[in-house]
């Protein structure tokens, strides 16, 4: 009910702000359409955030039932989480695998994006298609294939296997993100650096890298999120020693969903907010820089 009120209120507010922007008075059917669109749209947006909004307060529930009203506020489920060896191990494993994957995927992906930009259009198109195909092929298929390949080498139930498989999933996202940043990079800057006597390496490190850094960092965050979120590869390739957070949650939901899971879920929502915040900040910043550079170029 509160949700319904929220939707109605937000719809009214945004509809009013839109109407104010339009100069002329809208006709009745137009008004009806606008209000209908806003109500429907905000309803869908509420549907998108509702699960997250509901789970976060539940993790602070003093009682052990996963329902409202809360029977008091307590941090007991967080204490539970911190005290559980299997959850702390899952956190450690996820961060370990995520960080190494990020390093590998960012290195391979950034180099590839730089290369693709310098290739002729025909070659670049085919190579991008090949590089992006791990995004298109369902992960479960890649997981089966990787399982068959790694099994004879003892890489199933090993960190190495899991990290390699996560890098396959993550590297294409780094390529996409860095390539998008390179689109806004003015190659004349490198020529200018070269004409001032910089070697190609120095020009890259001192001129290009600082400018494309926001894109590289965004790509790295994407890579980390992909690895941190993956469950399919982990179900195939992680043994009990490599169990990651998603696998731990998967087992938890399968057996009996407990408030401890909502505490872990809340921490992951916080992490998502942080990662999203960084990426959005970098995006806005690089757009500002891009516009500033374009302006400077015109004067």
């Amino acid at each position: 009910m509160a949700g319904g009120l929220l939707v109605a209120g937000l719809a009214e507010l945004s509809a009013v702000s839109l109407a104010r922007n339009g100069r002329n008075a809208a006709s009745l059917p137009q008004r009806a359409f606008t209000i209908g669109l806003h109500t429907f749209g905000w309803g869908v947006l509420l549907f998108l955030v509702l699960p997250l909004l509901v789970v976060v307060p539940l993790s602070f529930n003093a009682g052990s039932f996963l329902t409202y009203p809360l029977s008091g506020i307590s941090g007991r489920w967080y204490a539970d989480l911190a005290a559980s060896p299997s959850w702390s191990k899952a956190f450690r494993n996820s961060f370990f695998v995520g960080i190494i994957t990020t390093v590998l995927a960012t290195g391979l992906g950034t180099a590839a994006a730089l290369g693709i930009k310098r290739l002729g259009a025909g070659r670049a198109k085919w190579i991008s298609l090949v590089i992006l195909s791990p995004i298109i092929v369902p992960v479960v298929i890649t997981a089966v294939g990787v399982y068959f390949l790694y099994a004879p080498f003892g890489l199933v139930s090993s960190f190495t296997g899991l990290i390699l498989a996560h890098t396959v999933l993550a590297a294409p996202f780094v390529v996409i993100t860095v390539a998008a940043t390179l689109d806004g990079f003015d190659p004349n800057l490198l020529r200018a650096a070269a004409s001032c006597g910089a070697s190609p390496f120095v020009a890259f490190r001192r001129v290009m890298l600082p400018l494309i850094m926001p894109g590289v960092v965004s790509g790295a965050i994407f890579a980390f999120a992909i690895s941190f979120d993956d469950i399919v590869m982990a179900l195939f390739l992680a043994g009990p020693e490599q169990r990651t957070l998603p696998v731990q949650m998967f087992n938890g939901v399968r057996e009996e969903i407990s408030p401890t899971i909502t505490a872990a879920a809340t921490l992951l929502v916080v992490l998502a907010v942080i990662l999203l915040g960084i990426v959005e900040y970098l995006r806005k910043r690089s757009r500002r820089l891009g516009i500033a550079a374009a302006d400077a170029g015109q004067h």
Partner: protein
Amino acid sequence: MTAGAVTTARAAPGGPAHRPLDASLGAQLRRADRGRQIRALLLVAPLLLFLFVNFALPLVLMLAKSIDGREEARALARTGAALASWDGRSAVPDAAAKALVADLGDLRGTPALSMVANRLNYDVNGMRSLVLKTARRLPPSGDATLAALGSIDPLWQRPEQWAAVLRATDRITSFHVLAAVDARRDPAGGITMLPPQQGVMREIFLRTFWIASVVTLACIVLGYPVAYLIASATPGWASVMMMAVLLPFWTSLLVRTSAWVVLLQTNGIVNKGLQGLGLTSAPVPLVFNRTGAYIALIHVLLPFMILPIYSIMKSVKPDYVRAAVSLGASPVTAFRRVYLPLTLPGLASGTLLVFVSALGFYITPALIGGAGDQMIGFFIAYYINDTVNWGMAAALGGLLLLSTAVVFLVYTWLAGSSSPAWRS
């Protein structure tokens, strides 16, 4: 100055001196260009090599596994040779019984016996115990006749069991691929479909496509208006709305799925709300069934629909629609003839993304769906992790890969052949 000199030198008519200069300049340019291309390729090479080993090779390996029958064929080599001329219906020659006894005698006590028994059991239920029992009580090779096998178990008198043995002796086998579509090869060489009550795979494939279609359609209906709302909102509101789309997008899949389990369970918040509103007197089953699976899948995939549509809508100038309306088009006509075609590329890529992702999904339905709502990905994982039937997992993976490729090709074909709006 120098540039002008070069231009005049090159423009000089017919002088013999400029030709070698021109050629060497061209060669230099070509060499420089080739050098640049080689350096570019060197930058791409590490990732290409990495993906070749850890992505392309695995896919090839999987496809190969689905038709690989070498181990079984080797284990049953003599039986295979003896059955080569059998027609599949008449009595099995004693030579085949003798060969089987010899093969089983060699297999006894090795892990290969269990492998062969499992492989035969995938084909005809009950053959695992039949083979293991026979291997324990093998007759001496002197009187290894069909009758002797029949006295161990009368099942050996029936052609069905021998047909299964024959099918297991192909080095390159179509068994798994056919089993993945509920078919099998009969001894005469034809392909027969299993009766509907025995075959489940066709139903699972249809179900997977059905669920993916419903989810995609729902995402279009929910996502298109939302994308429009965000694209037409003031920057402040747009960024608030965008957060509502991006936050779930960045949140772990497991968090979202478990949140839906919490919300939808029998005594969960949604049921309490429905009862509080007086819409229902008893809790509605919303979880561990198709409804729950649909809700959670739509929630997970909706951002993949909204984001591409939104980014196209941002690039469509409102002037076009205004122009259409000022030329006398009704709002509906203006939408249908101008706005929809212009935003179609976003809609198309959103549809492709959602549909292909939905085809391969299995975690969300596994946690929130019932036994009858599992999709093809679930069975691929099941055959790998639970029954260790690698051939079947590989065959199902191959079919899912094929489906994905077909969907992708249809998309690129549509994108390439229809109105210019698709191509942008």
